[in-house]
């Protein structure tokens, strides 16, 4: 059993690590903003001011022509009941199914094409090629929400979206429900002390350290992430591990987040040369995760947490 005090301690440690390692300005602000936002918009009163990773943004009226270039934000917007206000989402936003998917790209955004939708709010998770500057020049309000480094930051982003779209209460409900479910899953998960995990982003052994959002989920369970030792070499939190190292670490749990992108399966992994020596392969504890759930930080994170909690039962029974 993972004891709650231990989980709390780990959460605190993780927060410290992230505070120490995180980028300068993007992690600390959101909680404060969201609590302030709750007060101002309890009556759904616009204008509101929200804090994005591109600075404070004042929204004059409740937006009803939103363009989302962030797959995570798309999921959150629909989860908090703002789906009707969304007129277009990017080509990666494949969930929920009724999101108005277009060929707009969040990776190679075309400012003209976005402006063509005449949005009154654009949400992006990435700012390549002067996207934010370009939209601001056209007086289109843009809210940038970078990849969240941990659950708290992810919750804050959902609350910010609630404020920005006039769905403060629904956003709070979504966050509360996520928190409750995740807490339950984590506290009832079977013994994970010292259990090691390898999270695979691609068959070329790219992985994610505890400094990343997905890594922070493993931290909740007290799992030891084998990518952390390579963290120093790669400040981005996504090091490319060597096969030798993975085999010698012999992780107890392998999580494949490259089942869709790269067609990896538990069977393929167990046939890799030398991998039959890995504990997770021997005991069959290879989790096939959905790439997009594992790479986003929206409401479906609960599903990923559930997947890990379930797989840990298998690990403890070996």
């Amino acid at each position, binding site marked *: 059993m993972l004891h709650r005090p231990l989980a709390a301690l780990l959460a605190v440690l993780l927060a410290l690590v992230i505070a120490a390692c995180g980028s300068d300005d993007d992690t600390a602000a959101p909680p404060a903003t969201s609590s302030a936002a709750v007060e101002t918009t309890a009556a759904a009163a616009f204008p509101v001011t929200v804090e994005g990773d591109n600075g404070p943004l004042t929204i004059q009226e409740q937006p009803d022509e939103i363009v989302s270039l962030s797959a995570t934000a798309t999921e959150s917007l629909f989860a908090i009941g703002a789906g009707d206000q969304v007129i277009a989402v990017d080509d990666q936003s494949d969930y929920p199914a009724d999101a108005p998917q277009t060929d707009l790209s969040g990776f*190679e955004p075309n400012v003209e094409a976005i402006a063509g939708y005449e949005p009154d709010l654009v949400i992006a998770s990435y700012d390549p090629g002067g996207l934010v500057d370009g939209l601001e020049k056209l007086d289109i309000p843009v809210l940038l929400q970078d990849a969240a480094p941990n659950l708290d930051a992810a919750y804050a982003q959902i609350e910010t979206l609630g404020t920005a779209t006039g769905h403060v209460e629904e956003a709070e409900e979504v966050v509360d429900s996520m928190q409750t479910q995740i807490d339950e899953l984590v506290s009832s998960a079977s013994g994970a002390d010292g259990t090691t995990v390898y999270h695979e982003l691609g068959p*070329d*052994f790219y992985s994610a350290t505890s400094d990343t959002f997905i890594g922070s989920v493993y931290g909740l369970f007290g799992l030891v992430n084998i990518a952390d030792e390579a963290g120093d070499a790669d400040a981005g939190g996504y090091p*490319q*591990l*060597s096969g030798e190292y993975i*085999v010698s670490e012999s992780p107890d749990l392998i999580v494949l987040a490259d089942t869709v992108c*790269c067609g990896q399966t538990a069977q393929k992994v167990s046939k890799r040369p030398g991998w039959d020596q890995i504990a997770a392969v021997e005991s069959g504890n290879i989790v096939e995760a959905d790439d997009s759930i594992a790479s986003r930080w929206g409401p479906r994170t609960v599903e990923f947490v559930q997947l890990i909690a379930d797989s840990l039962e298998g690990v403890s029974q070996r």
Partner: protein
Amino acid sequence: MATARALRARLSARPERALRGVSAGWALAAGAFVVVSTLLGLALGPVDLGLGAVTREVLSHVPFLGVSSPFSGTEDAILWELRAPRVALGLLVGAMLASAGAAYQGVFRNPLADPYLLGAAAGAGLGATIVIAYDPGGGLDLRPIAAFAGAVLGVGIAYLLGRSVGGSATTTLILAGVTVAAFLTAVQTYVQQQSAETVQEVYSWILGQLETSGWSDVLILLPYVAVSTAVLLWHRRLLDVLAVGDDEAASLGVPVARVRLAVVAAATLGTAAAVAFSGLIAFVGIIVPHAVRLMAGTSYRVVLPLSLAFGGGFLVLMDLVARTVVAPAQLPIGVVTAFLGAPFFAVVLRSTRGVGP
């Protein structure tokens, strides 16, 4: 023709030396380099197996010595299923790229020619990108086949384009190669941008890596490298004659066009097979042959066999750096070959000024 004059002068001034192949000293040095880099490649890595333990483990496979293996199952798997095939792949790919580079430089009389000159890299890149983008993890891994087909196709188009323009000038062929490469690269980039979620995988393939899927990769590549390098070595004397110029070589009775086609075909097929498994490893095909020329002499009877040996050892050492310097993470090997290869080559270039080709 300054080159031709210089070569004739050299041929007449030092006839004995020019006629000789690799000297005993260089043969020994090349052999020792390959052996030492192979042993280092086996002994060192992100996981410390211990030099003595690796030696005992290797000896335990020699019959009648009675040495018992000190390794657990995991260590055994790391050495024989992960590290050893990787070292073998490094030897094959390095030998292939370096000797193909030397051959290209000879046949085009262009010191900047490398195995990717005629669009092999762009073609292989396009093939691999299409598979990564449109057929992620299909039943069997089509990447090597697609990369191989792309490379052969790229060079084939460049060759036909060059021929159709006419003229025997090698410049035409090189320009055709540059044209085809630019076009294929554009298509490759387009395909890559269309499927943003696989950009990372394409990028990492393009920078090159020697992580194998086991001995099968090595065994598939081996015959290509063996045949290709045998053809190149077979033509080493003719490459020397070709160095004086097409007309001069023709007047000496060398079938210039046929030799060029044979050498280009062999170098291309070998390169295509190598990059199919390793990705696009930069720079080996340029610096290894030139370093050999600067140190051991410019005759292709010396350059080709020595490039073969030093290329293999060099790539094993570069891969050793790639997988240990940021261990337990690893670097793409293309980054290491250029980052360490360029300064190394600069030193060789400076210390042998005036001796070069």
